């Protein structure tokens, strides 16, 4: 249902129940000021102001400023409109029944509804052109992950220079927020060093043809068991081997590629066996002949250490009487042997498409012409947009500089690559305003910018050739192309970036590395269990993404991913070995992320569970309603010896909640956390905590109650709309690289509604975000309606 329609229905519903209704509109003009319609004002006076007076101003007045909030000055609607964020909070508190406090007079349901209708109406109104404020994303510096991935995709080298950069700061829960990503001289120093080493490595790779993990041995480097080695090829004229003693850097999978051809004779082709040490790995029919040598390739498992890698000729044949003198002698000619690896076992990302820098060599046109060819392409890819000839020529200037210094063409190219990698056009994701951009306009970002938003959202990296081509040809927004591209990219292995970066931060999985459960209390906790916990959640998220499952699986699922170690931890039988696999869940103990040991561990203290942290985690990450911070001097649980003896953690927490100032938030947090008390601080199942039996029941302020985690999850599933919105907000924050503001409410509503209509499929969320106004548009530079600067 379109949001407008739902909005109208809601108003109609209110009308039927006798709630005040108005037909006003609000719009904002070029000045950034809000023009408030008279009836909107009237609604404020009739519904909102009386509400405030009756239920809020008793405490939240200028004098008392309880909770450091006064609502006294909001005398009319234009005044109120200036602070939209505040009203969102007011609504949240009133709606959730937190305010007014229980011991104060309570508003009637329809009074709350009027307040809500008024607030929501002005939080999401479009401008005269029908556009809602899409926000304006601050220019984004590549974060560490994005830098690494972009270098990988730009040059086809996988060496992660950004691992040595200082951490990127986090805002709104993510480390890709333009406003928060700063650039200190220390970081610039690192950029300079990285540019130098990337350029050097990139060129070295070009010169050696392949990446650093690849070793190629031609005839000169290969030995032969027969006579006559040391030429550019090894000719095996009779049974024998061309071989090399290769030092495998570690246990793992390696790709071996042999370039060879046969001098054919007899009724079968030359046969070649690849041997590692004494093992025959694979035998190939070498049908290729001298005019067109063949490449024979296979992957092998090899142990660390020096081993002989050999291409053996195994079917020597000699028939001197054959009439055709070219068919008398069967020989095998080995041109080269290449060993690549160790291969990444998860090998998701295929860097295989080798990216060259030296795309042209100085020829007739001289070095400048060659450099121009190189940088016309390279700069366009590095800057992720078309480049001007002037930009290219400036880069070519470095070739001149090097030549003047008496250095090589390659040195000049290297310097230009360094400059390119240090340029703000590479380091920042720049989105320029269109030429006609006025101060009050809202305009679509251009297609290259859109392609970048898409690729950094789904891949944490630059657009690939296909995406770039659609941007260049102007076909990206044609028909359903954008959705097609999003789906294609989601299916690509590079979308694993969503697991590492989005899920790692949304679920706060990255904090698992810092968790320090007390080893005396949790003896089984060790490095391998920690790794297993992380793996479960990552594979779970990846599965939902890859199989396009419902995002409600995050709340509850009848499957998870386990290896023997983790299954043991969970008390699940018949899972053997280190390999992770999907395991159907048969009982109520596990299912969904809330019952995964990773999440349960990071929301615990080192020595005990923390229902508060767990409750807070659910409110923040699942329901999207984080509690406000505790007031200073909030007081703590009594944990002296007597208190500990006198009751369970739960009982002591309940005493804490008897304190009214604590209750308003803890009545939201604690019950959710209690529902997970059956899991200890490392996520293992338990039925008692010391001498106290576990009581995993709880009642939420909205009246929902449950006994145990399974019922808690049912309650949460009952709030699937709320979860869908919360999840959408997180994903949208990550996609945009900015915090979600009140004006995004409409987009969030629409995306969440679409999700509901499409069985909550993961891909639906992605596709709708990509299609949303905040993703495709941006606000003119000087508009600042009521929001922050």
């Amino acid at each position, binding site marked *: 249902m379109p949001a407008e329609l739902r909005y109208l229905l809601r108003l109609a519903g209110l009308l039927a129940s006798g709630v005040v209704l108005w037909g006003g509109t609000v719009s904002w003009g070029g000045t950034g000021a809000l023009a408030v319609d008279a009836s909107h004002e009237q609604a404020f006076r009739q519904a909102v102001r009386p509400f405030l007076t009756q239920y809020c101003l008793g405490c939240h007045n200028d004098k008392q400023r309880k909770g450091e909030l006064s609502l006294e000055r909001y005398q009319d609607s234009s005044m109120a409109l200036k602070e939209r964020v505040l009203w969102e909070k007011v609504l949240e508190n009133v709606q959730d029944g937190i305010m007014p406090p229980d011991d104060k007079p309570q508003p009637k349901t329809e009074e709350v509804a009027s307040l809500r209708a008024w607030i929501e109406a002005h939080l999401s109104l479009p401008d005269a052109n029908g556009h809602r404020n899409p926000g304006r994303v*601050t*220019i984004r510096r590549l974060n560490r992950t994005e830098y690494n991935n972009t270098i990988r995709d730009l040059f086809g080298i996988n060496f992660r220079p950004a691992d040595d950069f200082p951490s990127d*700061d986090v805002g709104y829960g993510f480390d890709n927020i333009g406003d928060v990503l*700063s650039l*200190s001289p220390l970081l610039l120093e690192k950029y300079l060093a990285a540019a130098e080493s990337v350029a050097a490595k990139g060129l070295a790779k070009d010169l050696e043809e392949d990446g650093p993990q690849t070793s190629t041995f031609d005839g000169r480097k290969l030995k032969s068991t027969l006579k006559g080695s040391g030429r550019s090829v090894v000719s095996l004229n009779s049974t024998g081997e061309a071989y090399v003693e290769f030092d495998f850097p570690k246990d793992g999978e390696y790709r071996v590629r042999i370039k060879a051809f046969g001098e054919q004779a007899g009724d079968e082709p030359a046969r070649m066996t690849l041997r590692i040490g004494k093992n025959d790995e694979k035998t190939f029919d070498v049908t290729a002949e001298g005019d067109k040598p063949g490449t024979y390739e296979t992957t092998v498992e090899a142990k660390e250490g020096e081993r002989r890698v050999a291409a053996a000729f195994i079917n020597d044949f000699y028939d001197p009487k054959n009439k055709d003198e070219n068919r008398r002698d069967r020989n095998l000619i080995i041109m080269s042997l290449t060993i690549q690896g160790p291969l990444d076992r998860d090998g998701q990302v295929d860097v295989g498409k080798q990216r060259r820098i030296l795309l042209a060599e100085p020829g007739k046109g001289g070095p400048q012409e060659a450099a121009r060819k190189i940088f016309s392409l390279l700069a366009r890819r590095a800057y992720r947009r078309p480049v001007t000839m002037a930009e290219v020529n400036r880069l070519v200037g470095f070739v001149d500089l090097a030549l003047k210094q008496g250095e090589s063409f390659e040195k000049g190219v290297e310097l230009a690559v360094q400059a390119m990698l240090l340029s703000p056009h590479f380091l920042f994701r720049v989105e320029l305003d269109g030429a006609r951009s006025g101060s009050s306009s809202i305009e679509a970002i251009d297609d290259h910018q859109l392609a970048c938003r898409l690729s950094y959202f789904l891949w944490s990296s630059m657009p690939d050739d296909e995406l770039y081509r659609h941007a260049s040809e102007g076909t990206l927004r044609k028909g359903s192309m954008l959705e097609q591209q999003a789906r294609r990219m989601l299916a690509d292995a590079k979308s694993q970036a969503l697991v590492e970066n989005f899920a790692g931060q949304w679920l706060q999985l990255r904090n698992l590395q810092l968790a320090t459960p007390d*080893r005396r209390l949790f003896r089984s906790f060790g490095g391998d269990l920690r790794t297993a916990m992380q793996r479960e959640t990552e594979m779970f998220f990846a599965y939902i993404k890859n199989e396009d499952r419902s995002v409600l699986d995050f709340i509850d699922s009848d499957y998870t991913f386990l290896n023997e170690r983790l299954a043991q931890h969970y008390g699940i039988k018949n899972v053997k070995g280190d390999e992770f696999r999907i395991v159907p869940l048969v009982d109520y103990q596990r299912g969904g992320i809330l019952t995964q040991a990773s999440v349960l561990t990071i929301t615990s203290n080192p020595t005990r569970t923390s229902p508060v942290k767990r409750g807070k985690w659910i409110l923040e990450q699942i329901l999207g309603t984080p509690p406000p911070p505790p007031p200073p001097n909030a007081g703590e649980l009594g944990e*002296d010896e007597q208190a500990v003896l006198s009751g369970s953690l739960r009982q002591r927490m309940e005493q804490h909640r008897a304190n009214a100032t604590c209750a308003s938030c803890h009545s939201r947090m604690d019950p959710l956390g209690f529902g997970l008390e059956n899991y200890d601080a490392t996520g293992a199942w338990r039925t008692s905590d010391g001498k106290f039996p576990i009581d995993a029941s709880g009642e939420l302020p909205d009246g929902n109650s449950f006994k145990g985690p399974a019922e808690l999850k049912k309650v949460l599933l009952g709030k699937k709309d709320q979860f869908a919105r919360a999840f959408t907000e997180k994903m949208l924050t990550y996609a945009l690289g900015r915090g979600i503001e009140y004006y995004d409410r409409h987009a969030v509503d629409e995306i969440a509604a679409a999700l509901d209509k499409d069985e909550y499929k993961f891909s639906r969320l992605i596709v709708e975000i990509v299609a949303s106004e905040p993703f495709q548009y941006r606000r003119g530079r000087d508009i600042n309606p009521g929001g922050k600067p």
Partner: protein
Amino acid sequence: MSRFPISRRTVLKGIGTTLALPLLECMAPSQVTAAGKQQYPNRMAFLYVPNGKNMADWTPKQEGTDFELPLILEPLAKVQKDLCILTGLTADKARPNGDGGGDHARANAAFLTGCQPRKTDGADINVGQSVDQAAAERIGHLTRFPSLELGIDRGNTSGNCDSGYSCAYQSSISWRGPHTPTGKEVNPRLVFERLFGDASAGQSGDARARRDMYRRSILDFVQEDAAQLRSRVGATDRRKVDEYLTSVREIELRLSGKQWEPISPPTGMTKPDGVPKDYADHIRLMCDLMVLAFQGDLTRICTFAIANDGSNRSYPFIGVSEGHHELSHHGGNKDKQSKIAKINRFHVTQFAYLLEKLKSIPEGNGTLLDHAMIAYGSGISDGDRHNHDDLPIVLAGGGCGTVKPGRHIRYRIGTPLNNLWLSMLDRMGASVDRLGDSTASLKGLDEDV
């Protein structure tokens, strides 16, 4: 090849024993004055520890020169005569002042800035320049590195930080300007490479000069790019481009200023492998690198965050399995307080290691510690009350004769911590009129009040 005593748990085990660092084989950073007297430069460092202290075990009972070291400060016995224990200083800007919760983020960001961090999750980060960067701006050009920023914890890499404050506040004590944290190194290997990289590259002077020439032309190139870009973007973006430009200019200035000879690491020292697993080893390795940087006059200004405020690290190796932050909300529980004191004492033990090392290095008639001012402390006093007055602060070292150490000085509660920073800037030859909420230079450091 020489080995710096780094992968050396054996040595580190002997806590309290002074280990003589190999001397840097480079020029002594001294200057001969007109009067023919040798002068050594003054250095300053700031060490931050989180979550306040168990103040009962921190504050000495007596004042003046004759004071006993309480439990937490006991490990400093060997350098007691080199310490000023400063009681009563206050970080007012770490208080809510209307901003509600978030004391840890505030304490961290306000400690060296004396400015109220703007409460934001990211959109408009704003605090103020920190004392070390105020010094770097003024005297940073005198050394190869204007300043050195060290830490142990990376910033938070996910989730939310303290109560509506961006994680930038909680992971940065050093701020170049109101919007830009200076960034810090947590990996000893990278610090080493930064300090001594040039020397290990083994390039000739000519090759280095040519490399620097190329670097300068690259920096020119990107400055032009940025200047053009700057003219085409809106106000918020411009701030980011300006940040970039400022950093480019600083590096360029470094390249075009004095040509520094590469400094070799001392004989008997190799590059650290990375981040030591053991927390104490990690801290000490960072201390070693700081000492080397001071000794070789590679920089005179350093900050070192031993942990970010709000840290919930546990210390099982000293018998404290609970998280530090969790414990700091002790609610008056004696057991928890004594565990906090243990953690506090552990940190002070590492501080003592640093001071003893500085003291073991002779410089002229004195030691490196005599020519340094090492401030140590937290932006929170008691972790349970979250109060920001009566802060636990130590100033160690003689400051080239400008500080009279060996005393416990009590100031009126409410005296701005920034007054101390201001007076340290004076002693570095980097005076400013005001820094954050400072009201005047702190009296009494060189004389009895």
